[in-house]
């Protein structure tokens, strides 16, 4: 390390009702991998957006190599040598790899030259990529490579990576780390945003921890235990959920040879998926995003119909039934996307309670909705799951992610399902809420329900699932008991490193 590349001094940014960043200061050294650690809502993204010129700070300043640095747009940030790999929203599915990369560059060369340069850089850094392919057809890991190469082509001085490993298999993570170490050795600084503690301890030279918009500490992560870091990040000792269910009896949910096409243009078709879940059991389904998770949930919720005999609930074939009939049979679901799928953003919590619970909780009489009953049920969910909101009349979109997720999970759990399927139950949720949700799922299983948890958070699955399987290209691996499963085994179940056979990392 040779001095400071970017000094952040007292950056403050307020949004109505929230102080997203409160006088945050730290230095990023030249050739340093600097971790930015914090829970969801700690203010990491706001801080990064200010560095990248997407958001203007209310107060404070930044200094890059001695000169004031105040980008008013991403263009200015890129000109100053700052590049960013986004977690979401930055690729164009219908465009090719080369077009996507050209869009992220200030002065792209002609398309043919660009394609050559993409090939060169991708080989140098062990990230193979075909410039002519349409991005929508790429796996999540490959998409990330597009973003990384887009950044590398601009020879950045500072590379910002926002939760880069959430879409990768363990093997792909190892390769990514090699690439990042190589960049560090070339003098590039990396700001690495994550909430995964082990990764940070393995990769990063320095870590800055944010909590509630404030900086808690800057430290050397290798010198701290994961537990120390977690406590600094969360500010309280976490409770590990208790499991005391013993799966027994005939399967409640049985999926046999399930194959369906995806309704989405760039989706993944499900191929020959079979599994059974018994009362009291939690089945964990992992896998990299985009390998059929959404489709599996749709096929179980009844939004996608399958052929006769593919999905049965307690012996009843529901394959040709829609969501209403499946709910009546006791199969309930909670999709990944809270706003717009699990809940209607502009509708009140009362209305959102009626969304899935109307029939089971006796709110319907001859087609007319009893809104008093719906309101009562919403209040019950709010109380039982500690949903922080002024009341059930509030629109769903006004709730924070964690609170809405608690409401959505609570809405299904309190209907006493026989089978509950959840997709990404704690994604983007703060640690306390995540713990509460996991406990609720375990309690439900303890009460004799069968629970299927689809998640990309492997730690979560290892914590609560009895058995584990991984989705890869729309197929489900063989199921294994979670006890004693190693990271390498999990990685292989998830499909190893996608398309990395030709990679030479030097």
């Amino acid at each position, binding site marked *: 390390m040779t001095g400071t590349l970017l000094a952040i001094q007292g950056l403050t940014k307020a949004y109505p009702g929230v102080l997203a960043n409160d006088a945050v200061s730290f230095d990023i050294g030249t050739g340093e991998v600097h971790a930015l650690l914090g829970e969801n809502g700690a203010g990491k993204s706001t801080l990064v957006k200010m560095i990248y010129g997407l958001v203007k700070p209310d107060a404070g300043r930044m200094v890059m190599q001695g000169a004031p640095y105040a980008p008013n747009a991403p263009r200015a940030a890129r000109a100053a040598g700052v590049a960013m790999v986004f977690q979401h929203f930055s690729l164009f599915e219908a465009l090719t790899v080369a077009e996507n990369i050209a869009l992220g560059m200030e002065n792209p060369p002609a398309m043919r030259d660009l394609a050559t340069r993409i090939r060169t850089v991708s080989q140098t850094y062990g990230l193979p990529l075909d410039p002519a392919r349409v991005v929508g057809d790429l796996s999540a890991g490959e998409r990330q490579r597009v973003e990384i190469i887009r950044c590398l082509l601009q020879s950045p001085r500072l590379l910002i990576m926002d939760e880069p490993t959430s879409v990768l298999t363990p093997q792909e993570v190892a390769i990514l780390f090699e690439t990042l170490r190589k960049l560090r050795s070339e003098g590039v600084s990396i700001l690495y945003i994550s909430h995964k503690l082990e990764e940070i301890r393995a990769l990063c030279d320095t870590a800055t921890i944010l909590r509630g918009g404030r900086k808690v500490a800057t430290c050397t992560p290798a010198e701290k235990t994961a537990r120390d870091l977690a406590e600094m990040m969360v500010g309280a000792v976490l409770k590990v959920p208790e499991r005391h269910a013993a799966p027994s009896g005939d399967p409640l949910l049985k999926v046999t040879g399930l194959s369906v096409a995806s309704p989405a243009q760039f989706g993944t078709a499900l191929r020959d998926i079979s599994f059974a879940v018994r009362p009291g059991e939690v089945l964990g389904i992992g896998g990299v995003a985009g390998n059929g998770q959404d489709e599996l949930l749709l096929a179980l919720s009844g*939004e996608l119909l399958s052929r006769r005999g593919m999905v049965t609930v307690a012996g009843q074939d529901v394959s040709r039934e829609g969501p209403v009939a499946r709910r009546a049979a006791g199969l309930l679901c909670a999709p990944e996307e809270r706003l717009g*799928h*699990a809940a*209607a953003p502009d509708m009140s919590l009362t209305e959102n309670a009626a*969304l899935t619970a109307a029939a089971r909780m006796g709110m319907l009489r001859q*087609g*007319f909705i009893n809104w008093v009953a719906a309101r009562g049920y919403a209040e019950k969910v709010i109380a039982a799951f500690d949903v922080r909101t002024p009341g059930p009349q509030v629109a769903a979109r006004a709730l924070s992610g964690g609170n809405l997720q608690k409401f959505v999970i609570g809405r299904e759990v309190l209907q006493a399902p026989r089978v509950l399927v959840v997709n990404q139950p704690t994604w983007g949720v703060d640690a306390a809420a995540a713990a509460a949700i996991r406990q609720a799922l375990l309690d439900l299983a303890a009460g004799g329900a069968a629970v299927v948890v689809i998640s990309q958070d492997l730690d979560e699955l290892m914590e609560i699932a009895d058995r584990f399987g991984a989705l890869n290209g729309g197929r489900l691996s063989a199921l294994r008991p979670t006890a004693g499963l190693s990271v390498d085994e999990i990685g292989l179940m998830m499909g190893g490193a996608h398309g990395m056979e030709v990679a030479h990392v030097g």
Partner: protein
Amino acid sequence: MIRLEKRRMPSQVWTWAAPVVAVLATMVAGGAVFAALGKDPLVAIRTIFWDPLFSEFAFYYRPQLMIKGAPLVLIAIGLSLGFRAGIWNIGAEGQYIMGALAGAGVALAAYPLEAAWLFPAMVIAGALGGWAWAMIPGLLKVTLGTNEILVSLMLVYVAEKILAAMALGLMKNPDGFGFPGSRNLQQYPSATSWIDQAAGLHWGVAAAFIAVIAAYVLLSRHVLGFQIRLAGQAPRAARFAGVNTARLVLFCLGTSGALAGMAGLFEVAGPSGVVSIDFNAGYGFTAIIVAFLGRLHPLGILLAGGLMALTYVGGDMAQANLQLPKAAIQLFQGMMLFFLLAVDVFTNFRLRINLRGAA
């Protein structure tokens, strides 16, 4: 620097204030247009908005309000169901024509029979005619995913051509000395929709009030109304909830088509009386404005329909007394929708003015 900032909750105040502000803004902008045409804007606005209700000849104009307002409300109620669900039937004008033709066809075929069942049969035929015309885009959308906006609109032009062919051919009055147009149904006691012509009361007025009440109950209490709102606001959440999208499309298009068809029948069997090449006065399009101006809410539509009827009646007065061109009223109505859409931003966003500027 001025920025828009999304509200956490839609503003209740603006939901109801927006149409009022839009109407006021339209009066100002419309006044400017009238002034540019060389008319006194205050007199013009008063002629349009005040005189039909309160001038010494108001006794003549008030019934006209009901006559103009009824079809607008009836059509707009149907359209609002679809608009709420994100189903865009903009071909109500065609459904209105086809309903009128079907209903009038029954009467003309039965002429000169006098029977109590004739008028109900006409109403049913009218509703079916509009319904069937709306089912074309409906079925195409459900089975093939064809865009209902363009199909329903194209069918307006097709309906107009059919109307022309009917008025000049099959439905032409055999005793009409070769003039185009059908027999006058006003003079056919079993077929007319008039209840009390002097009071401006015909069955369409009654139907409009019934439709308002039924739509209100449907939207606020019934699970179908809930599904309609859900499908429009969050289509994926609707599928998750178990809404049968195809059935909803057919219901919304079918209902709006049937109501538009009935409106056409009431018109042709009453105020118009005759199937003529241009008996349709564009109510099917104006009703789109009424639906939005009424916030797609049944009671709002009732008020908006009344207001829009006022601009028609007042526009006629202004045409007669001030020589204000008829097109000025059409422009005025279009302007109102624009202002509403623009003002509506405040329902979901608030304006933040940062006086420190872009630092």
